[in-house]
């Protein structure tokens, strides 16, 4: 047990060293044209048992940009996004094939540790899922288990501020996270994700269970987040995709029971104004789905 822990600990610190070298470059290149690569996905397929849920997905996710994934229900957007931090395989019988590069690391390589990957690629879920801990501990826990040695109070405050929640909870940090409203809980989950300082943040319909005001707050947070993080978001709300994203991927299934495909992937403006494929146009103009 002990040796395993040290090994993990070292793995994490290696990661942060690597990031310390990489980050400034990314930061330098991103404002220019956004040509830096956040993640590179090649021929990804995901399975539930023997059922192929999505297939043949290749896409480049740009660093410090928001990439939105849209498409009708059941076409594999959520399945796909869960493959990007190896959360898909948590479901019994589920597995993925293909290559997903995060920096130099292929996250599906033999030597890659899902625990380390998930720390580098954070995730916010559809339904807010705060832990049964205080607001403070909800944010601090992830950092603690990842061996954070710095000032935890500062980290908690910074993360809550980034998630636009600090002002609402600063006087009740010791209270349970369950006492918050749905929108606040979701921002708490975002803060919790930010507190482990990931490189990429995946969001699986983060606002679908929230009212318009909370949704607005989450969207504001996102435009703030892309300054320092690469964001991938699944959404059913096309206006939302158009408002917040730089790139948009359209997922589609031709025939019921087939695996989902990435039908079209381009800059958001192009997808919404002049897409190459007819199905994309039909979907974004609201003709189906």
């Amino acid at each position: 047990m002990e040796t395993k822990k040290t090994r993990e600990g070292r793995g994490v610190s290696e990661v942060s060293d690597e990031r310390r070298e990489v980050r400034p470059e990314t930061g330098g290149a991103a404002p220019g044209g956004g040509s830096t690569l956040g993640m590179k996905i090649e021929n990804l397929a995901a399975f539930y048992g023997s059922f192929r849920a999505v297939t043949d997905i290749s896409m480049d996710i740009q660093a410090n940009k928001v990439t939105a994934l849209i498409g009708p229900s059941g076409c594999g957007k959520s399945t796909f996004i869960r493959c990007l931090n190896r959360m898909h395989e948590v479901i019994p019988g589920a597995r993925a094939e293909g290559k997903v590069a995060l920096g130099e690391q292929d996250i599906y390589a033999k030597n890659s540790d899902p625990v380390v990957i998930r720390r580098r690629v954070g995730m916010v879920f559809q339904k807010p899922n705060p832990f049964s801990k205080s607001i403070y501990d909800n944010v601090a826990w992830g950092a603690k288990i990842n061996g954070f040695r710095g000032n935890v109070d500062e980290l908690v405050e910074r993360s809550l501020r980034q998630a636009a929640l600090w002002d609402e909870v600063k006087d009740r940090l010791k209270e349970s996270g369950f006492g918050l409203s749905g929108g606040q809980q979701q921002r708490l989950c975002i803060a919790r994700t930010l507190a482990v300082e990931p490189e990429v943040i995946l969001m699986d319909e983060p606002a679908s269970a929230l009212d318009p005001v909370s949704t607005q707050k989450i969207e504001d947070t996102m435009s703030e987040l892309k300054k320092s993080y690469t964001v991938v978001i699944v959404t059913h709300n096309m206006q939302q995709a158009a408002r917040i994203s730089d790139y948009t991927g359209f997922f589609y299934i031709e025939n019921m029971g087939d695996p989902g495909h990435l039908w079209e992937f381009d800059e958001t403006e192009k997808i919404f104004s002049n897409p190459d494929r007819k199905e994309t146009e039909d979907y974004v103009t609201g003709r189906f789905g």
Partner: protein
Amino acid sequence: MAVETQGARSREGDWHRNSRARQARERIIKFLLTACAYVSIFTTIGIVVVLFEETLRFFLDVSIVEFLTTTRWAPQQGDFGVLPLVYGTLMATFIAIAVALPVGLLTAIYLSEYAPKRLRRWLKPALEILAGVPTVVYGYFALTFITPFFRDSVLPGIGSFNALAAGLIMGVMIIPTVASVSEDAIYAVPRSLREGAYALGATKRETATKIVVPAALSGIVAAVILGISRAIGETMIVTIAMGSQPNFGGSPTESMQAMTAYIVQVVGGETPRGSITFESIFAVGSALFLMTLALNLASYWFVRRFREIY
């Protein structure tokens, strides 16, 4: 217009539901169901009334202060300090929980978080079979196997009857209760909470021990209190393996008498009904009842107070 057409199409003569007979049937069913529900309530009330009535009669002869505070229990000499019996009961219970809590909880965590689905499917029922072993068998197992085993190995001075063997085997007896009920609570923690932890880079162990178990805490506490209640009320094991020597402050290797064991001794012996010794079993029974009642109330309060709503 449309309604009229509909009405005209269905002919009156085709429909024969007798609404008066139906209402009578409904009333009878409701009466039967209510009666069944009240059977258990009235039985409980009846038992409590009889118990307290006899207890009251006992306390006309013996002061309640003496009963609750003195430390010598010798009915033949007229000494009625209940503490030695309470001590025996609590000693056995404490040893039992010291076994059942860690083993039961770890079993529950294993079954819910680590065991492959197929293994869980037969391991959980197998565990519950352990709860079906008659307690008299456990008692003889403690007396004829556990105690001699201790005497031949680490504790040569251990008595033939002792709290240690009785408590240990009682712990084994309540492991299924603790494991099964806490496993239900742990298994009920939603997957989304586990995924939230994994997504932060938590390992399986960190997720299980620091996120899932705390979220299931109220259920786990309820499981442990249920186990304690069973241990306190358990009769055969302590009667057979722990002995009939009231013993206040003794070591676990000595013989001592539990409250339940004393009741068995008096009821099964030659004590004449109506004598003060015979009445004392009602006082001991009342004390036992109040102890488990307090535990159940504590459990009820705890579950309501700390239940997480997902």
